């Protein structure tokens, strides 16, 4: 916004607008907690019961941990990824569909404020569901967090990245089907194949190499390193990949907002 940054009141307006959008987004998922917070809690409980308690003991230890300990980080990341993504894509597309996104577009709110406000909702819901799943996991196993900073930072960066993914999806979506395509056909397969339920060390050569092209593998393993101190890949590589994807996604989101793609005719 050329010529705007020096205008008196610009910073104040931007901060209040950011707080308004962030609170609006947070209030939205808290208000409909039966749709946003309860389902992941139930689903992840079922994962722990079935894969952890019932099937896990027959599988035996993996990477030096009991099977339920091994899957806890991946299951937490699954909920973080899905909820961060779904919060932003459904809220942003809903705002487009009902056209109340125009309330913000006609206001002096800068594009980066709109983006950060929506991301705040996605990151908040992703981390909150992650926390709920951690609390549930405590009923099934005892995990002592090995590297708290890595655990929290990886969860935060992953929630941020997938909130950005949801935002980009929301910009391009034209109908409700469009917001289900990416989670169903891309996100879920990549998450299941991202080392949530197994170590890639178990895979034969070519499949192992293919798995390394899956970005979710790096997030799951980095988070597992934070919780258990175990990872199939170097932690620095995981951070680098996550941060590069975040930078690309932020640039793309701001470019799309600036161009008005899907928002302005």
């Amino acid at each position, binding site marked *: 916004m050329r010529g705007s940054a020096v205008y008196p009141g610009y910073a104040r*307006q931007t901060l209040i607008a950011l707080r*308004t959008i962030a609170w609006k987004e947070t209030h939205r998922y808290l208000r409909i907690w039966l749709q946003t917070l309860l389902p992941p809690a139930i689903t992840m409980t079922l994962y722990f019961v079935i894969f952890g308690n019932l099937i896990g003991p027959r599988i035996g230890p993996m990477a030096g941990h009991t099977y339920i300990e091994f899957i806890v980080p991946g299951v937490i990341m699954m909920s973080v990824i899905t909820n961060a993504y779904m919060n932003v894509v459904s809220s942003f597309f809903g705002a487009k569909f009902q056209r109340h996104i125009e309330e913000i577009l006609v206001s002096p709110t800068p594009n980066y404020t709109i983006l950060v406000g929506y991301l705040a909702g996605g990151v908040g819901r992703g981390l909150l569901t992650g926390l709920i799943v951690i609390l549930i996991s405590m009923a099934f196993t005892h995990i002592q967090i090995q590297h708290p900073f890595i655990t929290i930072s990886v969860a935060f960066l992953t929630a941020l990245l997938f909130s950005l993914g949801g935002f980009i999806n929301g910009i391009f979506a034209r109908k409700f089907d469009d917001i289900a395509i990416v989670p169903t056909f891309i996100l879920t397969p990549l998450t299941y194949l991202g080392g949530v339920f197994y170590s890639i060390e178990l895979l034969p050569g070519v499949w192992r190499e293919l798995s390394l092209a899956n970005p979710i593998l790096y997030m799951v393993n980095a988070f597992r390193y934070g919780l258990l101190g175990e990872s199939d890949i170097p932690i620095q590589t995981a951070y680098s990949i996550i941060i590069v994807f975040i930078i690309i996604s932020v640039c793309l989101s701001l470019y799309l907002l600036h161009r008005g793609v899907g928002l*302005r005719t």
Partner: protein
Amino acid sequence: MQALFLSRLNKIYASGVHALRDVDLVVDEGEFFGLLGPNGAGKSTIIGIISSLVRKTRGRVEVFGYSIDREPWQAKSLLGLVPQEFNFNSFETVSQIILNQAGFYGINRRTAHQRAEQYLTELGLWSRRNSVSRTLSGGMKRRLMIARALVHQPRLLILDEPTAGVDIEVRRSMWDFLRRINAEGTTIILSTHYLEEAESLCRNIAIIDQGQIIENTDVRSLLRKLTAQSFLLDIDGRLADVPELGDFHVVPVDESCLEVEVRSDQSLNELFARLAERNVQVVSMKNKSNRLEELFIRMLERPPEAHREPTQVEKTA
């Protein structure tokens, strides 16, 4: 000062529709300005461009001297928009909608609450402040959109069909409200299909047709261009024959009603004198249609083949 300045504004949609063609328009501060035109003329496109919901193809737009391209923050801060279609979150309450809007404009919570109470009270919605917006009637939703557009106290308020679908009582109360905020200094641009509304409220009017401004003047000057008016006369008793009224063109509507056309060079006194000569007693009289409406229809009259969608950009062979 100019509240709005448009220069050589053009819009060509991706579909090829050339919606605006070199539109020039100036609205001075303090005006109550009417923007009229048939469906598809380009009114909403102009409003969309000013409010940045539509990207212009070329041209200049300034709001109180601020360019929407170079100084969007300043231009948008001064602008309030009441769009044609309801575009608020139907799951939020009336208060939430107003307070959020205030937040988007950087208004602190305390001031926002005060203004929400002020405008919701003035527009008769304060008792419904905790109602979810989707439960409001059509008229209430229209008033909510006006309250929302005013919460940041814009210097220029643009209303796109603000009274569409509301009953006459609510419409007249909204007119009073708009007159008052205009008198208090808010410049208003009104796009409406109700020409009675435009005639009653606006001092200046622009008529747009097929993406071009075809008239831009004050209402009085515009109405002077009306070369004839049609009146409906209710007659006491029943008429056996259509009375001969000299140069006046008379058409019977039914046995006790006549339609008479009075040209601008004729007077009503003359008409009534002729009626009296023939012992025709007039019980009541009214314009057949609103004067501006009559003028509007005559100005937009064109051969049937000209009534078509906005022209497509001609594709080069």
